[in-house]
């Protein structure tokens, strides 16, 4: 008997002997991006305390530690891609809160994305067709996305009210009715219509920055794109918005479609590196987080690996960028009581929590109340709220409850997915709290007119 090996736990233990027989049709193992990402997990359990899905179920298999163990057993070839396993990979929000608290530095996001990739590759994803439709057909093409958005806008303007009034959605399957509600309002004008390809500040140019218009930001939050660009101009930046830019690819990659993600990444590398830029500034957290990973995504691509690294090094979240350049101090008071929600892709993927708060604190007149569990996912998580509606709504309820407790009149969300989701939660419960973006408030405090009034 000894201290360390499994055999030494006494005669009473049940050594693990996985049933190989069940694996006759084993379709191939998960390709772990880097073995250290799994073996560094010492199963201490610190991640359980911040995992939204573990909070929901209290089940170990729904925790990061449990999922890592399951992935490890699958990767070793001792467990098939079972329906339970697939469901657990799908249940995970990929919010990466676990990475923030992991002392050992395990890159959980990479593990779950690799698993989803494998699940998709062997055709076992139950949401396969819905996801492929979004990630291979809609998002890769700004043109197609805009056509759909324009249709949705027409619908929201004219048809939605009437249909809601006559109770049309009660006639539809529940899921379709929800899609109507979940979609944030489509902007009257898309931001690539309002904004030009090259925009210059009034005075001397200090920085030359690229701007990613984003998929959702462009069609649903065009005003916030305008606000962001105005803030950058006010800070002496020349803003370049390359016409040939495409979706960043993050939604595809997070759902295991690396093929689409890589092809989109290459197009963006071409579009942005064509300009001599000091930084590429992004106001959508999921996009900035993912574009910072282009270097890793394309590291094995002989043609693109260096360029990908070059681009990733330039990517900045807009709050991060403004704090780095010591942004112009705003002067005009904005009298509001606000609270700040941390987007997962800012707080957990990029460790950006101080910068947005510093910008808000600089605005005179704002009363800022800290939000309880501010870094817990709101349940939006890409298209999670569409594909796992019930789980998403449980998390949204918890988020909205916390927001209501602050008694703030405005909740600040610096990411389009979160903003849409929280808006939906508040609207559904008829709570009179507004959702706003830090850039909108900063612009107000610079004394610039709101986006809608400048055209």
């Amino acid at each position, binding site marked *: *008997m*000894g*201290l*360390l*090996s*499994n055999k*030494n*736990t*006494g*005669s*009473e*233990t*049940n*050594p*693990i002997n996985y049933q190989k027989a069940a694996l006759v049709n084993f379709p191939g193992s998960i390709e772990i991006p880097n073995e*250290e990402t799994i*073996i*560094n*997990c*010492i*199963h*201490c*359990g*610190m991640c*359980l*305390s911040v995992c939204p899905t573990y909070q929901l179920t*209290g*089940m*170990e*298999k729904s*925790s990061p530690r*449990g999922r890592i*163990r*399951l992935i490890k*057993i699958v990767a070793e070839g001792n*467990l098939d891609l*079972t329906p*339970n*396993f697939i469901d*657990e990979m799908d249940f995970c929000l990929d919010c990466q809160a676990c990475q923030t*608290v*992991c*002392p*050992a*530095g395990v890159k959980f996001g990479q593990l779950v994305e690799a698993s989803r990739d494998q699940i998709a590759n062997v055709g076992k994803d139950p949401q396969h067709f819905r996801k492929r439709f979004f990630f291979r057909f809609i998002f890769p093409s700004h043109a197609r996305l805009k056509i759909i958005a324009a249709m949705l806008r027409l619908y929201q303007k004219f048809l939605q009210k009437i249909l809601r009034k006559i109770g049309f959605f009660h006639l539809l399957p529940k899921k379709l009715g929800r899609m109507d509600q979940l979609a944030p309002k489509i902007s009257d004008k898309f931001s690539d219509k309002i904004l030009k390809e090259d925009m210059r500040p009034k005075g001397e140019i200090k920085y030359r920055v690229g701007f990613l218009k984003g998929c959702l930001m462009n069609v649903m939050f065009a005003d916030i794109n305008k606000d962001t660009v105005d803030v950058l101009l006010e800070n002496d930046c020349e803003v370049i918005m390359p016409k040939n830019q495409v979706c960043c690819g993050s939604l595809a990659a997070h759902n295991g479609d690396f093929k689409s993600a890589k092809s989109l990444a290459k197009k963006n590398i071409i579009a942005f590196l064509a300009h001599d830029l000091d930084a590429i500034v992004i106001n959508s957290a999921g996009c900035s987080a993912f574009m910072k990973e282009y270097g890793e995504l394309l590291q094995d691509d002989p043609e693109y690996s260096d360029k990908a690294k070059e681009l990733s090094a330039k990517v900045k979240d807009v709050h991060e960028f403004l704090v780095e350049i010591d942004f112009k101090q705003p002067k005009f008071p904005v009298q509001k009581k606000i609270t700040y929600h941390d987007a997962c892709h800012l707080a957990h993927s990029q460790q950006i929590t101080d910068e947005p708060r510093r910008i808000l604190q600089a605005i005179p007149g704002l009363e800022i109340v800290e939000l309880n569990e501010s870094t817990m996912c709101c349940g939006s998580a890409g298209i999670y709220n569409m594909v796992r509606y019930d789980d998403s709504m449980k998390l949204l309820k918890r988020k909205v409850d916390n927001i209501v407790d602050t008694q703030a009149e405005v909740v600040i969300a610096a990411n389009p997915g979160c903003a849409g989701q929280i808006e939906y939660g508040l609207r559904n419960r008829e709570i009179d709290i507004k959702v706003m973006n830090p850039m909108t408030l900063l612009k107000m405090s610079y004394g610039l007119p709101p986006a809608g009034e400048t055209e």
Partner: protein
Amino acid sequence: MNTNVMNRLQSIVGKNNIYSSQEDRIAYSYDGTPVLEALPDAAVRAHSVEEISQILKLANETGFSVIPRGSGTGLSGGSIPTKDSVILLMNHWDKIVEIDRENLTALVQPGVITADLHHAVEKVGLFYPPDPGSMTICTIGGNVAENAGGLRGLKYGVTKNYVMGIEAVLANGDIVKLGGKNVKDVSGYNLKDFLVGSEGTIAIFTQILLKLIPKPKAQKTMLAYFQNMTNAAQTVSDIIAAHIIPATLEFLDQTTIQCVEDFAGIGLPKNIGALLLIEVDGHPAQVEDETKQIIPIANKNGASEVKIASTEKEADDLKTARRSAFAALARAKPTTILEDATVPRSQLAPMVDKIQNIAEKYQIRMGVFGHAGDGNLHPTALTDERDSDEMHRVEQAFEEIFREALELGGTLTGEHGVGLAKKRYLEEWSSSGQKELMQKLKRALDPNNVLNPGKIFDVQF
């Protein structure tokens, strides 16, 4: 486990409270202990004391084992499954039943997270001192079962000093209530203290009554940097000798400092040999006075710098960073084997020297940190479970560390428990009659050996 037994289990807890899928069994095959793993037959959730009692009666009748599990953060293998076992999940027993502000007690269910209890009682100006490293997720039930310690053990003691009463189900299914709100109570044997630290082998806790104290009005957190461990250890001895008992007096060696800084990024210098994290608390005047005394003591022992945290957040960040030490060491090597050999506090400096010599002798990379103030050390081997030769040397090194600790009047484990991980050392080195008495008690109270069998020691029936 045969279908018949499974059906009977199901009729006790209901179909939705039995988890026997391969995925669930894998997820309950481990806890926080390195290397140990085994598959249970199933995991179950009970929702009443009565259900737990029935499960244990069934276990006695049909011969399966019951392994209680909170959040699975234990470091001695206490909730590792054994042969023919069912994991009894307790993490959903998470209600704080009552905070009694007149009697200064908290009545909690065993699944309450330790940090959640801290927040709840601190909101009303009260204080529950035990703060194990895993407090953001570990449960009170697990803390009581292992008699967990923490960073504040030096001044405030450990879990056993705060348990006033326990409601529990014994191995045969009997329900007992031990202790209560009386500060003084000598009506018979002090039985609740026998359950504290029983590592799940005697009873399943269903309610725990805890003592609270008023929250200290002020606190100050300091960091002192040293060129070597010996100077840091001497500072600890001198602080105690000056009759100052800080709430926290923790030390980290260079390897640990480097890994912690890589994780936390709070600006710790990576080139220093050791650091002390010191926190004094109490009345503001006392805190001020003790801080003034500690700084020259550190300086006299060659501290290169003594820093005082300027905000509460800075102090919290420092303590959180210290709590991450164990897992952060995994950054250096994939397998971290953590022990908690403990010596009387006067023997701290010699013990630290011995650990360093032993690590050198066996060519093991060792990170050393721990609760310097109470002599509770955490020598942590940084190794790789895939390297069997090195793993063998690690085992030899720890054996020697334990022997040295015992020779200095110390003990095998200060706060993690014996479980499976240190069972064989207990066989060799338990004090006179201790193991035999424990075995007698176990035989008497659990004659069919159904509760967490084979943990702490083996028993012949």
